[in-house]
């Protein structure tokens, strides 16, 4: 990295402990100390949170001031002289430490925070070995903060309020507060009496004592027993950096690795707690082979040659086109690249990773790759943004946190969506229309932009009949008012929409006219990577939809689970059942009883293999295996390499380094030019409003991928609750649901019929004649997202 030259004119000169330092105006003494590598003890101060100056641990002496001042909240001034270790400063710091400890239980030997506790560490430097406090100590009742954060020992709390400020300022909803006064003050959840945030785990890192600890990790290990490895989160396309912590080769705790450009110092709860799946009962440790309809454990020597032989037979018998390869967008670049290479070596181009996509017209032929359209960090600087069809908080929780910061600084954030959502940030405008009207509503914005800018381009014929409302004009103005700092994002709902290409085309047109940037919010950890690697039909192969609608004789599933990971759950199930042979490469035992693969090969999850993800901003992030593969599981790339050998298509690479190098090389080829959200589709006529009841399907965030589905603590959170069917009162009364608590949903006929009974809830914010129930959950995964379905009151 080249050193950036900083213009220091106008900076202030001050001294910390006699050492000169220059700081920009508006900095604090704490920042000046950090800049000059001087440590000032602190508890309530945190660089990402507002200043409260309440713990008083950072009191320092400043020349000409009669009293010690808190370094965190004292602005620097020209000629200031600060002493952090003078007699007066140390006396103040020691007295604060004494006060902090008088009511603290000092139960370090049985405290989970022991060994990584800020209070413990600082008490060594500033506390005394004995206490003059001879009164009885305060006792505070434990609190329920849900299944992730343990607040059982609130007597340890030192009221720094970092957790309170976090929920309010970063997570967007003040779920905690400090009630009562004085030394009776307690931190407590109070809104819904528990903590529901999707990024709540960060409170555990923020808590400087053992008051808030990890519930799943509680009493599992001591900090000094753990080894630490860097890794990358395999969930959303942010690619949050992780420190995976292991005890005896088992992942027992995950913490953020600070990376200001990506996850800052945060993690989403699924980044942090999904490791529980790695150690769960559902891990597959030996190959499985189907015998008489049941999957029986086998060894590699049996399973692998059998898999190769059956693939070979089918290809020889029915041709290579009879094979279909479905690759999870959570797969590593190496696994996917090798799997695609093997399929193509066998002359099969039916390869796809776009498992939840429905409209491929704009992505099938294109060599370009959709991405965020800007560096992640730039999102925090936006002044205006429009999100089209995005479940932002659930799809990219930490990107939502960045947008929230922008919104708090006054950015105008708007949403156009079919599902009403609680954004937990000030929203400029929210427009909710039914899925079939989404394109029409977006077209109205395009027309509004034409009018507002008096654009030179004439209005395309397809948009002649579209009339924008005053609201539309206002939304467009908010984008126009933020030149260079406006962006339009296509969320997962827009990408998975049946008219995804049309929506993208309209969004691009809106971006062109308003000069906003256009970004796509990729669905999964490696969506961008697999797109760059060309893990989709390159010649005349079938995309995922075609592969399932015209069933193949054989399927290979890489880390993908049917029906959970596909949009067409029903079609996929039926295709798998018809197939002669289904080979699954997965770290987990199959969970859908009715679509059991014929052979399952246990491959390593992300912690047990080296791998590479390319995130939404196109950043290549490689990681090493943090732990050795469990039992007989093997890294995916090794399994595919072995399979290729047995099919007489050996690969040149034999080491993980070589596999990584060749995968990255091919993906990175011309990558900068290929990362583009510009598509050349012509505008087609606007679709008509659907006549039947339409479904709105999000991906339930704790069911989105195989790992989170098996993370037991995440599964106990409020956000993981089983799906409900939401609709407005008019539809409910039309369906006669008044007397029934549940609604029965049916799809398909005969052996392909699928039904579910879901409790229904009334949501008046939903568009008329729509029902929302999310996909990927065991109750709903069996449905095709698109396609007819029938609703009736459950008896």
């Amino acid at each position, binding site marked *: 990295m080249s050193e950036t030259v900083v213009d220091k004119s106008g900076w202030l000169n001050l001294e910390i402990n006699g050492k000169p330092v220059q700081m920009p105006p508006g900095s604090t003494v704490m920042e000046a100390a950090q800049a000059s590598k001087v440590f000032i003890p602190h508890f309530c101060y945190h660089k990402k949170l507002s*200043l*409260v*100056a*309440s*713990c*008083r*641990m950072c*009191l320092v002496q400043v020349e000409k001031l*009669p*009293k*010690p001042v*808190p370094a965190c*909240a004292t*602005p620097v001034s020209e000629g200031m002289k600060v002493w952090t270790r003078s007699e007066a400063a140390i006396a*103040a710091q020691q*007295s*604060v430490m*004494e*006060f*902090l400890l*008088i*009511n603290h239980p000092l139960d370090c030997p049985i405290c989970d925070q022991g060994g990584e506790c800020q209070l413990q560490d600082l008490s060594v430097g500033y506390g005394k070995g004995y206490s*003059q*406090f*001879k*009164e009885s100590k*305060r006792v505070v009742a434990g609190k329920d903060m849900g299944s992730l954060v343990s607040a059982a020992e609130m007597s340890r709390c*030192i*009221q720094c*309020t970092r957790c309170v400020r976090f929920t309010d300022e970063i997570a967007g909803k003040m779920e905690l*507060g*400090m009630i*009562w*006064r*004085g*030394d*009776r*003050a307690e931190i407590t959840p109070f809104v819904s009496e528990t903590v529901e945030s999707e990024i709540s785990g960060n409170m555990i890192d923020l808590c400087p004592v053992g008051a808030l600890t990890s519930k799943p990790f509680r009493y599992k290990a001591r900090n000094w027993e753990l080894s630490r490895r860097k890794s990358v989160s395999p969930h959303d396309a942010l690619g949050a950096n992780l420190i995976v912590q292991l005890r005896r080769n088992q992942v027992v705790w995950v913490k953020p690795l600070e990376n200001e450009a990506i996850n800052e110092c945060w993690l989403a709860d699924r980044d942090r707690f999904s490791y529980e799946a790695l150690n769960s009962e559902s891990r597959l440790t030996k190959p499985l082979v189907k015998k008489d309809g049941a999957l029986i454990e086998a060894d590699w020597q049996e399973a692998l040659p059998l898999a190769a032989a059956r693939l070979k037979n089918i290809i020889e018998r029915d041709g290579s086109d009879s094979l279909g390869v479905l690759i999870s967008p959570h797969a590593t670049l190496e696994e996917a690249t090798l799997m695609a290479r093997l399929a193509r070596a066998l002359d099969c181009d039916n390869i796809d990773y776009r498992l939840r996509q429905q409209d491929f017209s704009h992505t099938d032929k294109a060599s370009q790759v959709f991405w965020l359209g800007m560096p992640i960090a730039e999102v925090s600087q936006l002044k205006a943004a429009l999100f089209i069809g995005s479940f932002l908080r659930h799809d990219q929780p930490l990107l939502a946190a960045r947008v929230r910061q922008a919104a708090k600084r006054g950015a105008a954030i708007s949403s156009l969506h079919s599902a009403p959502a609680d954004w937990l940030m000030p929203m400029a405008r929210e427009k909710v229309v039914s899925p079939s009207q989404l394109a029409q509503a977006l077209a109205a914005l395009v027309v509004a932009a034409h009018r507002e800018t008096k654009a030179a381009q004439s209005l395309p014929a397809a948009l002649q009949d579209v009339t924008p409302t005053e609201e539309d004009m206002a939304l467009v103005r908010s984008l126009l008012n933020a030149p260079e700092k406006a962006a339009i994002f296509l969320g997962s709902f827009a990408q998975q929409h049946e008219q995804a290409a049309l929506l993208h085309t309209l969004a691009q047109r809106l971006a062109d006219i308003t000069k906003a940037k256009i970004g796509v919010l990729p669905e999964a950890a490696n969506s961008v990577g697999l797109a760059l690697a060309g893990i989709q039909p390159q010649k005349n192969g079938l995309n995922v939809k075609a592969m399932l609608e015209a069933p193949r004789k054989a399927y290979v599933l890489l880390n993908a689970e049917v029906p959970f990971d596909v949009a067409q759950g029903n079609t996929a199930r039926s295709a798998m059942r018809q197939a002669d042979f289904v080979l699954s490469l997965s770290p987990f035992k199959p969970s859908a009883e009715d679509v059991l693969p014929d052979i399952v090969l246990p491959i390593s999850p992300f912690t047990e293999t080296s791998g590479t993800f390319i995130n939404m901003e196109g950043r290549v992030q490689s990681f090493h295996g943090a732990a050795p593969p469990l039992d007989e599981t093997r890294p995916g790339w090794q399994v595919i390499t072995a399979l290729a050998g047995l099919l007489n298509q050996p690969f040149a690479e034999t080491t993980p380094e070589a596999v990584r190098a060749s995968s990255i090389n091919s993906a990175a080829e011309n990558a900068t030019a290929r990362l583009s959200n510009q598509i050349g589709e012509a505008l087609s006529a606007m679709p008509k409003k659907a006549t039947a009841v339409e479904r709105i399907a999000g991906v339930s965030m704790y069911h989105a991928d195989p790992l989170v589905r098996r993370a037991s603590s995440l599964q106990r959170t409020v956000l993981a609750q089983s799906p409900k069917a939401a609709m407005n009162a008019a539809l409910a009364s039309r369906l006669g649901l008044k007397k029934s608590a549940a609604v029965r949903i049916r799809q398909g006929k005969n052996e392909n019929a699928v039904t579910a009974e879901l409790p229904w809830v009334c949501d008046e914010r939903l568009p008329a004649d729509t029902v929302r129930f999310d996909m990927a959950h065991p109750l709903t995964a069996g449905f095709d997202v698109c396609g007819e379905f029938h609703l009736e009151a459950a008896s």
Partner: protein
Amino acid sequence: MSAFLDYGSDAVLMKDLTGDNWRLKDYVARGGYEALKTILKDRIAPEQVLAEIKGSGLRGRGGAGFPTGMKWSFMPAAAPEKYVVCNADEGEPGTFKDRDILRFNPHMVIEGMIIAAYVMGCARGYNYIHGEIWEVYERCEEALDEARAAGFLGQRIMGSDFSFELFNHHGFGAYICGEETGLLESLEGKKGQPRYKPPFPANVGLYGKPTTINNVETFACVSLIIKNGSQWFLGLGKGNAGGTKLFSVSGDVERPGNYELRLGTPFAKLLEMAGGVRGGRKLKAVIPGGSSSPVLPGEIMMATDLDYDSIAKAGSMMGSGAVIVMDETRCMVRCLARLSEFYHEESCGQCTPCREGTGWLAHLMHRIEHGEGRPGDIETLDRVAHNIMGRTICALGDAAAMPVRSFVKHFRDEFVYHIEHHRCQVADHV
């Protein structure tokens, strides 16, 4: 009622009040709203009014005694949205003067706030009234209605370009909401907790906008200064501190109540007005400025004049002017235990030294008072108080610590007796 309405012959704020003549017409008959009329009719520039206030030597009556004119001049002229707030959250033990002013002369405060708003360019003001004096809140509501109806509040007051809206807001009785930034938090609908300063309210105040907060009595003085001139007001006081001051006398006196005196009047005179020490007993100690000011032994107090500098020289503070008189039958240990319990109860819990320290002090005092004191407790008391002082976000920490240090300093023998004999010296010997 008349006994309580005898504020003394020096009274100017509380002059001629009968308890029933608080309405607008009565106030106008006493010359009320004339100052405002003069300013608006004669188009006296805000700078000129400010100069009068500065010249009058008016100092804040809430406790800190900061020069009012200077405080007003801190408000940024250019800011488009500014607030003026009256601190009527009178919670200091021993203080009950603002209640009388608002009850018997509410329009004087309203007029003062209007003039202040005019000087500082505020379009909105709030009067934050202590939660436990509901009757006063209701009276202030009536007074505001009268002032609005008479055109002293609202748009284009008396045909001028100046518009000002004023609202009453009642708290819920937390002592900490009398701290100006705690008051602002509470006014915004949040938990009353002081803010760290800087930034000061003059830059970042109510809803983040420049705000000036003054005590009830301070605002009450404003119209008199404008009407009678700054020199007249300065002449009422002593040295650079102008005006009269209301003293709330409580404790062991024959006639507890509010007395309005010129600054610089000897304490002995006030004690005499209050009928002397109850039952002719001996004066033991006086807390001259509300519970958070250091206690002074009776003999020192008898030689002290009641003004900012004299009381400071004697080792205490003018504070809010709440004079708590204690005679020889009072156990100082018990008095301090009660005070420490109060600060323990009222600490907001935000910053460490106050949250933990006030509890520690209260526990220690409770033990000593109940004959369970241990050797070393007095030293611990003093050390804990010392460690709270000057290290907290707001002045509540100091307020809790100062009585402790002064009681121990002046009456150490009583504390020693309690610890050594496990009982009270006063009960044993007086």
